[in-house]
């Protein structure tokens, strides 16, 4: 039979309260308020810890855990591919082409997409950059067989991705540094 001993130590009472509180259902805003009321900056806590986690997860040993860009973003945000593209301000075709041919696109584009993802999707830029470093062999299955023999360039990717003229100029300007 389960015998209960009266709690004789206040630490045990406080620890039990803390543990059971952690099991309770909390809304995110409630948690933020609790943390802020105790003198800690909740935003900074989340950002600092996330940055550290991303850094550790993006180290070489973890590449097996990362999916190609779009799938990774879908997994992390629970949004559809088209919603992700819309939030990033690019056509879905552009995003999927970038995912498949990340080894061809300029580093300035990677950086811009990583910044946009961090801003609009709250996915850390380190993680986005890491997904774009997945070896070409691992995303080969996603590639278009019709383009296999074609010499692809980032200009060609822009041309084929249905991007508007002003946007096209923006992405080209990132490469030229203009």
């Amino acid at each position, binding site marked *: 039979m389960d015998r209960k001993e*009266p709690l004789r130590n206040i630490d045990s009472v406080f620890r039990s309260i803390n543990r059971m509180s*952690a099991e309770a259902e909390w809304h995110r805003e409630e*948690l933020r308020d609790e943390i802020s009321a105790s003198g*800690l900056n*909740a935003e900074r806590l989340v950002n600092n810890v996330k940055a550290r986690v991303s850094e550790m997860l993006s180290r070489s040993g*973890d590449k097996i855990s990362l999916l190609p860009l779009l799938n990774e973003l879908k997994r*992390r945000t629970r949004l559809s591919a088209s919603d992700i593209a819309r939030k990033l301000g690019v056509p879905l075709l552009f995003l999927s082409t970038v995912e498949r041919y990340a080894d061809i696109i300029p580093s300035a584009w990677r950086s811009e997409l990583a910044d946009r993802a961090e801003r609009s999707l709250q996915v850390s830029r380190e993680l986005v950059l890491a997904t774009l470093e997945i070896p070409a062999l691992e995303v080969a299955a996603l590639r278009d067989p019709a383009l296999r023999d074609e010499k692809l360039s980032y200009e060609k990717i822009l041309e084929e991705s249905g991007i508007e003229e002003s946007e096209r100029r923006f992405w080209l300007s990132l490469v030229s540094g203009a």
Partner: protein
Amino acid sequence: MLNEAREALTRMSEDELTDMILQLGRYALRESNRLRWRTGDSVELPGGETVDSIVSLALEKTLSGDRRWNPKLKPNIQEYLMDVIDSLLSHLATGKDNRLFVTASSSIDSVESGRTPSSQGHHMESDWLARSGISPEDTVSKNEEEKLHERAIELLLASSKDDPVLVQVVEAMLLGNDKADRIASATGLNIREVYNAMKRLDRKAAQVSIQIGELITTKAQ
């Protein structure tokens, strides 16, 4: 060997990760509140650590494999990380960087002005001199512990007196019911009511914890 923690964190959505970090932050704050720090501050801890850095460190140690999470033994990674936080905070609280520092003059000032070191925050720290090399955690003797326990319970019940559910929950806990389902059985509340009560009680406990900390600090001077 497969690092299960890395896999679990990689599978988490950003929202899930945010919620877990916030939950760990809240947990670490409360635990830190419960411990006694020479800094007189439960956010900025000795050794240059902070509550942020403790949460980060718990995740780092688990991700690096320094602390190995076994999902078969503890399926919920958040619970495992709370154990790691407990261990890190306990290590810090009993470490040599958390020795009690106090000067005779600051002690007299506190008595005369009615202020306690924790109410004066960081300003005290630079003036304090090492006293007997004991940690704040060690300052409470066994025979004082019982009195503090009673005082803390009085304060907890007093601060809960306008909320009969909280009083019921505290009384059930004092009888040794330390799990939500046991408290539910003992009080007749449903489990949801117990958890909601626990969130309210958590805030009260944090306040009492601070008051008890101030009592201990005053006694130590």
